[in-house]
């Protein structure tokens, strides 16, 4: 497996939040390329298109107004699947082939194998997969896997007018992130950081975050993990259960061999 993985590059997006102007061009490009169709919007006091991702909205620009060091900051996040190296959705999925991770790092949902249980929703630490009650299938950003396999960058990367989204190998993007962080620090953003959380083994969509000490204000979980406490417990319980249930069958057989069917005395 490792040999296969090292055979090709693993891709990554790098979203430089400091360069994002909030134009939502990526939102539109995503809808167009993936043919997701429009959804009605409602004003809820923000420029944000929708409150949350949906089966038809795989990419959502989030706009949060937050006061940092006495100044009002308009924090923008390109919210979509982060394509974890250790995907909680994949660990939680019971249907073989419904969620797959390609060797290039992309985590994809194959709807024809999806059984609609929504366990992936419980497994994702970023609350990304969305369930469509009419089709009983779950969907999310697939990193434009059809473009990538043809050697193209994802639609959001292609459309971004400020080059806030970069695309390349994971190593190159990490190196680029370091440069960007250096520049940001020189500009006075002392806490600038790359968002590539270790709890999920790193991600194939990373952010350069100017205020790295305010992750939650960007709607980014500070310490996401692919195996939150109940899920770790579940993994342990399943192993225990497999043993106990098997042993109970074996135990019954051994008891039968030892004592046989009970014969009532004449």
């Amino acid at each position: 497996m490792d040999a296969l993985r090292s055979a090709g590059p693993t891709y990554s997006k790098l979203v430089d939040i400091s360069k994002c102007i909030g134009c939502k061009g990526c939102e539109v490009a995503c809808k167009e390329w993936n043919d997701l169709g429009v959804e009605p919007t409602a004003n809820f006091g923000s420029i944000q298109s929708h409150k949350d991702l949906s089966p038809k909205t795989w990419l959502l620009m989030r706009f949060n107004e937050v006061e940092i060091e006495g100044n009002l900051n308009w924090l923008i996040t390109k919210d979509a699947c982060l394509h974890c190296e250790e995907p909680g959705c994949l660990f939680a999925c019971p249907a073989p082939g419904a969620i797959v991770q390609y060797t290039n790092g992309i985590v994809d949902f194959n709807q024809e194998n999806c059984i609609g249980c929504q366990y992936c929703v419980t497994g994702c630490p970023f609350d990304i997969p969305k369930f469509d009650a009419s089709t009983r299938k779950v969907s999310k950003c697939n990193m434009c896997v059809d473009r990538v396999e043809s050697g193209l960058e994802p639609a959001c990367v292609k459309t971004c007018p400020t080059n806030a989204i970069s695309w390349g190998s994971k190593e190159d993007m990490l190196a680029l992130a370091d440069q960007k962080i250096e520049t940001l620090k020189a500009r006075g953003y002392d806490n600038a950081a790359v968002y590539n959380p270790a709890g999920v083994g790193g991600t194939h969509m990373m952010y350069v975050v100017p205020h790295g000490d305010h992750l939650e204000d960007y709607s980014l979980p500070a310490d996401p993990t692919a195996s939150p406490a109940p899920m770790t417990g579940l993994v342990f319980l399943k192993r225990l259960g497999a043993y106990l249930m098997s042993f109970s069958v074996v135990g019954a057989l051994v008891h039968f061999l030892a004592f046989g069917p009970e014969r009532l005395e004449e």
Partner: protein
Amino acid sequence: MTVATGEVRNRILLRFTFFERIIHWIVGGAFVALLMTGLAFAYPTLFWMTILFGGGAAARVLHPWFGVAFGIGMVVMVVAWIRDMFLDDGDRQWLAAVKHYAMRDTDRVPPAGKYNAGQKMFFWFQAILAIVFLVSGMFLWFPEYFSAEVLRWMRLSHYLATLGGGVLLVVHVYLGTVAYPGTARAMVDGMVTDRWARHHHPRWHEERTRSELL
């Protein structure tokens, strides 16, 4: 009283009514279907079992409906049997001697009534597990209305109940079939032999014999 407790040759006794047998098999059938689909969802190596229910997506749709049948059946069963299921002093003595029961050392097992303490405990365990199954199952049936964190705990509870229920089922089926010949018939045509009743449930046998003689 020796006459009343003696064996009556070729006599058979009704142990479970038609109604009780139907309810038992609704609950039992639903539980086996639930266990098969549920284990398929829990273990990718067992996912092939969903093919018996029309594939994964169909199994996911059917599983909660099996749960509805199981839940309704359990409620009826509890209402029908709960009166006989409270443990008395004789049952506590029986439980203390459960080792002798398992070792077939019948002479050292205190006489049981219509149900022995093990059967009564099985009833209560099953009732408690059913509550855990049904409550957590409701969350997992409609996950779109609950937070991921709540659902994680519900998956854990649902699986914990599966573990208990799976082991209980194996014990129940083993003791009810091959371990004690003549027992399974009580859930087929409802009858047991006089000898079986006198051996396994002496207090119930005595009660029935006396009421027939009166």
